[in-house]
């Protein structure tokens, strides 16, 4: 059964249509990726699903229509979004950022969840008292994901998690993403790094100028000549260099 269904979703900034009639579907415990060039409308799509942007169309999460739900409500129903800018609480410590990720939980629950996050991101534990604003790009990404995971979401949406990160960190992040899926978290992954995204995903959508132009199982899209040409480069067949 699908966890999230998006039907005929459109987002407009004034007269500019950023997203036009997009439909997508995510099953529980699967990774779905949306790839596309800069400005294709991927970020607007995620923000609209999370309720940060006003949008037309239908978003259904766990069988409930989200139209009237503000972002906070969607969050408490089990959706989490890690934005491209990460939106961390920069002048607060790593620990405080994580605590706020589970701000409705009791103290004992927070401690337990934080231990789980630290197990997944040991680097955060070493620096738990450091201010979020002083972290490196990779650590920020980990903290943003950790903060989102503190809520134990059913759907984790990641906007460009590999942006600006060293290849070794990117590999680590993608490893964690597939591990999360194996633990039952559905993931909606928006990426410009199409090669890495298609490798880890179960299903993929290609967005161009606000429209979904292609979709299919990720392995199938990774072999599609149009995808190879536009998003993977001519070395697309070599999938070991992610």
């Amino acid at each position: 059964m699908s966890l999230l269904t998006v039907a005929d979703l459109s987002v407009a900034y004034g007269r500019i249509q950023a997203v036009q009639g997009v439909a997508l579907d995510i099953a529980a415990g699967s990774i779905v990726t949306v790839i596309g060039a800069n400005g294709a409308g991927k970020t607007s799509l995620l923000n609209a699903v999370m309720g940060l942007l006003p949008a037309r169309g239908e978003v259904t999460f766990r069988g409930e229509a989200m139209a009237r739900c503000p972002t906070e409500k969607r969050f408490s129903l089990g959706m989490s979004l890690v934005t491209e800018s990460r939106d961390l609480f920069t002048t607060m410590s790593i620990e405080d950022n994580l605590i706020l990720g589970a701000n409705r939980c009791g103290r004992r629950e927070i401690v337990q969840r934080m231990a789980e996050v630290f197990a997944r991101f040991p680097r955060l534990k070493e620096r738990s008292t450091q201010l979020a604003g002083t972290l490196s790009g990779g650590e920020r990404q980990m903290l943003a994901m950790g903060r989102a995971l503190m809520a134990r979401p059913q759907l984790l949406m990641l906007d460009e998690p590999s942006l600006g990160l060293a290849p070794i960190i990117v590999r680590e992040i993608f490893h964690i993403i597939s591990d999360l899926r194996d633990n039952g978290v559905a993931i909606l992954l928006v990426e410009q790094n199409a090669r890495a995204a298609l490798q880890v995903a179960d299903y993929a959508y290609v967005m161009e100028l606000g429209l979904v132009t292609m979709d299919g199982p990720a392995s199938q899209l990774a072999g599609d000549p149009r995808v190879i040409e536009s998003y993977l480069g001519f070395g697309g067949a070599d999938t070991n260099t992610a």
Partner: protein
Amino acid sequence: MDATTLLLLGQDSLISGAIYALLAVTMVMVFSVTRVLFIPQGEFVTYGALTLAALEAGRVPGTAWLLLGVGAVAAVLAMTRARQTLTFLKAIRILIIDVGLPALLLLIVHWAAPLKLGLVPEMLLTLALVVPLGPLVYRIAFQPLAEASILVLLIVAVGVHMGMTGLGLVFFGPEGYQTSAFSDAVFELGFMNISAQSIWVVTTTAALLLGLYLFFEKTVSGKMLRAAAISRRGARLVGISTDRTGYLAFTLTALIGAVSGLMIGSLTTIYYDSGFIIGLKGFVAAILGGLHSYPLAAAAALLVGTVESFSSYSASAFKEVIVFTIIIPVLLWRSIFRPPVEHLE
């Protein structure tokens, strides 16, 4: 100026500085959480002092009726806003909280006011009447505009200030009042007299500031307020509703304003419009602190208190002018040497 005068003015500076510090710190908090420059902060001081004065005189304070009226307006707005999802139960809940509770308070005050229950119960009653006005003002004036620009929010704040001053005149009348002191005792320290009231003011202020510090550092609610101040979007993404942090910030600001009113009510005569100047001085201190640093704002408030006391001694006709003038070099300094603050827009 001899030593006695100096000490006297020093004591005076400390007392007014303490009050301004409370107002400045809450002004910084409200601004960083909601982006509202809350000019009417001083009105809560006035309302606190005048409500206590009325209760001491055995009269029902106008605030009791005001709270009922404001609650009714908030209830109507809440129901209009939620009209599409409004159920019977929800409407009843809104009515009980926004109209029922103020009505109950009104009954209690009607019963309690003539009995003159003494200072502590009267102070508690005052807080119960004045503090709820904070979140109600937020709901009526600012919540619908949460995404508006800082300038729009400032204009609304000025409007709220005018409204609250006008309502103050309607509900308290044009006469000034002074409340009785927490304590009449006077201690002699060397050649100086220290009134117990001034010790009360300073220790209460210190306790409130310490309490605020612990609230922001140690409690999840305090951290939520800080988080909303750092990144509104980040806060929404972890389920912190900006409405909730807005209520909380306005409740705190009303509480601290009202407590300040209880403290200074016995030191000076308060009229329905006295709050404005008091609030403005807190505002000057908040600006001197750059509108983001709590310790700087508190320190600047002490400076404002000092400048005020000493200028009222040596150039009393110009005391307000001198206090408000110190803002100019600071603004110049900041505009030249500091980059514009990023989170403003």
